[in-house]
């Protein structure tokens, strides 16, 4: 052996010893040790074979976690990669590229804990506090205006019925010329609009006519079902007149609560106050409730990682030959076709790197779920990483915890092989 080779060897041992020692003891060896522990009982005292794996795959808690992991692995990397591609392509052609990209990339620097706190605020269920529900309610109310009298109900003893969908109907039939009285209660005083006047029954006359009013006097002094002084009419109530189950006329009450449909004659009518008058206001969605919690957490994950995908993809974008794109455009390809048929195929390796990176990252997801899912819905939102933590440190079942750790490791194994292959192909000759 030459002197130089000897120096190299000796130096290599010195230079590499700390790394090999630390990584060997704290990263590599635990893989083996976890496997060994996964075959042992909760406190590690007995050999139990595959019992922990059986428990892991049969207990409803971990099965749900595995199912959630599957949703995560399919949805999050796909959405993040597609968004990243869109952001990379779009930001490429606007002013303020740098500032925009920086803003989109910024969440990458934030901890999952801080992001969790941030999104707890975003997802707050009360639309007065939660930004997302405030926006959702605003959009909803633009297209479907809020009902004027949510929660109103009929005065007992008036004979009015509330049907299944919440509409109010008169009992029996009504003939033209009569005055229908529709007393409503259950409305706070401030539910009566400012322009409402004291209730005045319409004068007798042709057609179907009537009065809708708030049958309540301050101090409860009035007589139920009777229009007492100080009781207000309810304006803008949608009134439907029916005959044989068909709506034959529609009108709204005036400021005094009156309505008249003069052209109707004869009898056999009934009057219905549409359900839309009384529906409870839309209050947004329960983002962090059992049904939506996983999509909501994935949403915050997307917020964090889309910038990462954008940065990596736009670096790849810079290497797409300009001439290929231009040639496609000269040949008459549209913007979209150019993107789909030229740019994306060139980017395929980059997109693969992004997607695989995200899959590996998503498999280990832990903090975001722990922080963002409220305690009561954690079981619904759980993922393997979280189950592993709870099994090991809440239930102190090291056997089961290790089995989950081994499963997690097995799931990232293809990613590991992929990395090693990439390295061999690109760097080692």
């Amino acid at each position, binding site marked *: 052996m030459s002197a130089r080779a000897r120096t190299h060897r000796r*130096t290599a041992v010195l230079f590499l010893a700390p790394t090999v020692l630390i990584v060997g003891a704290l990263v590599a060896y635990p893989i083996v040790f976890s496997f060994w522990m996964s075959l042992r009982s909760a406190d590690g005292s007995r050999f139990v074979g595959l019992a922990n794996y059986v428990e892991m795959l049969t207990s409803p808690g971990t099965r749900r976690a595995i199912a959630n992991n599957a949703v995560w692995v399919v949805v999050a990397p796909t959405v993040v990669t597609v968004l990243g591609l869109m952001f990379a392509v779009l930001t490429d052609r606007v002013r303020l590229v740098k500032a925009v990209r920086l803003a989109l990339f910024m969440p990458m620097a934030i901890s999952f804990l801080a992001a969790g706190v941030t999104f707890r605020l975003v997802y707050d269920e009360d639309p007065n506090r939660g930004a997302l529900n405030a926006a959702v309610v605003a959009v909803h109310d633009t297209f479907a205006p809020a009902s004027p009298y949510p929660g109103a109900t009929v005065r007992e003893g008036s004979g009015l019925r509330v049907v299944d969908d919440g509409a109010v109907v008169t009992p029996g039939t009504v003939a033209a010329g009569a005055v229908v009285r529709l007393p409503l209660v259950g409305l706070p005083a401030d539910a009566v609009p400012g322009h409402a006047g004291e209730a005045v029954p319409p004068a007798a006359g042709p057609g179907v006519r009537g009065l809708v009013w708030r049958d309540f006097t301050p101090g409860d002094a009035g007589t139920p079902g009777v229009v007492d002084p100080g009781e207000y009419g309810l304006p803008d109530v949608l009134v439907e007149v029916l005959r044989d189950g068909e709506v034959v006329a529609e009108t709204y009450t005036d400021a005094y609560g009156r309505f008249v449909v003069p052209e109707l004659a004869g009898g056999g009518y009934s009057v219905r106050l549409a359900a839309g008058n009384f529906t409870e206001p839309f209050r947004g969605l329960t983002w962090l409730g059992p049904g939506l919690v996983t999509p909501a957490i994935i949403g915050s994950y997307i917020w964090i990682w889309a910038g990462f995908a954008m940065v990596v993809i736009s670096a790849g974008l810079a290497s797409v030959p300009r001439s290929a794109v231009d040639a496609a455009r000269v040949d008459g390809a549209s913007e979209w076709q150019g993107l789909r048929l030229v740019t994306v195929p060139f980017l395929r390796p980059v997109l693969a790197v992004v997607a695989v990176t995200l899959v590996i990252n998503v498999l280990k997801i832990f903090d975001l779920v722990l922080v963002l899912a409220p305690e009561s819905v954690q079981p619904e939102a759980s993922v393997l990483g979280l189950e592993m933590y709870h099994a090991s440190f809440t239930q102190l079942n090291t056997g089961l915890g290790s089995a989950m750790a081994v499963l*997690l490791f097995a799931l990232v194994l293809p990613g590991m092989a992929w990395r090693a292959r990439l390295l061999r192909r690109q760097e080692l000759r």
Partner: protein
Amino acid sequence: MSAAGTAGTAGTAAAPATFVRTDVPRLRPAPTVPSGPPRPGLVRRLWRRASEVVTQVTVLGVTAVWLLPTLGLAMASLRTAGDNSVTGWWTALAEPNQLTVENYVALLSNETILRSLWNTVLITVPSTVLVVVVGAFAAYALTWLEFPGRDWLLVVLVALIVVPVQVAILPNARLFDLLGIYGHLAGVVLFHVAFGLPLAVFLLRGFFRSIPQDLVAAARLDGGSELAVFARVVLPLSGPALAALAIFQFLWVWNDLLVALVFATAESAPITYALREQMRAFSSNIDVIGPGAFLSMSVPLIVFFAFQRYFVHGVLAGSTK
């Protein structure tokens, strides 16, 4: 510098180096009153202009949406718990007198939070320094020294980048217990160093390889020992790569929660751990959690904005962790 320049180009659009005019300006008669049908191509130009405007507006809209959550946290942290329990942070835009530094003042006298913030520093700084130093030695050996099994060792180290932290927490908890560092800052630091090293070796080796071989060979011929070549030739050239790695590791450790939950105690808890404790009663503790979370993310954000070029380089070079 040049290396950092090429590495950091991801943030800038690839602009054409030179602009060549292909259309030769034509002489036209003096403009007269416009008449006749619009020139051909106008519709197309308008269409193109419109799509540019739409793109610009879309991008700015998305950017605004992306900034809103952070803005919301910042605003909420500047409002009293009472205000936060009744209305959303955006009402402060209309009534700026809601904003107060009260929560931050209270936070400065909250010993648990202050100590945990200091613990975060005590964990992050040594973890970062150790990973950079230890990793640099290893990467040098794996790049510039010849010894049997080198490629094999490299492949194993790189493959270990993707090992989930969860695989190691139980065995290492047991090991640290034996060593008597379970629950101590030293244990947390050691764990982070171990999980930072594989990526460090990969990132630094990728950069060291780009140093011209002649430079290293010349230094050796001049009689420099390997340590001298490493310290005087390779390291001084590797500033950008070391910076990228340091920032990556810094953010990773600063933002960690899982390792802290397992390996720290209330005494040695970093800020993420302390805030997580408060989150059991989220809405009643929002006056601590809000400013605490904002304070805890302000440091990574400053680091991010100050060194984003290096960070981008790190992300591009080793985009798996």
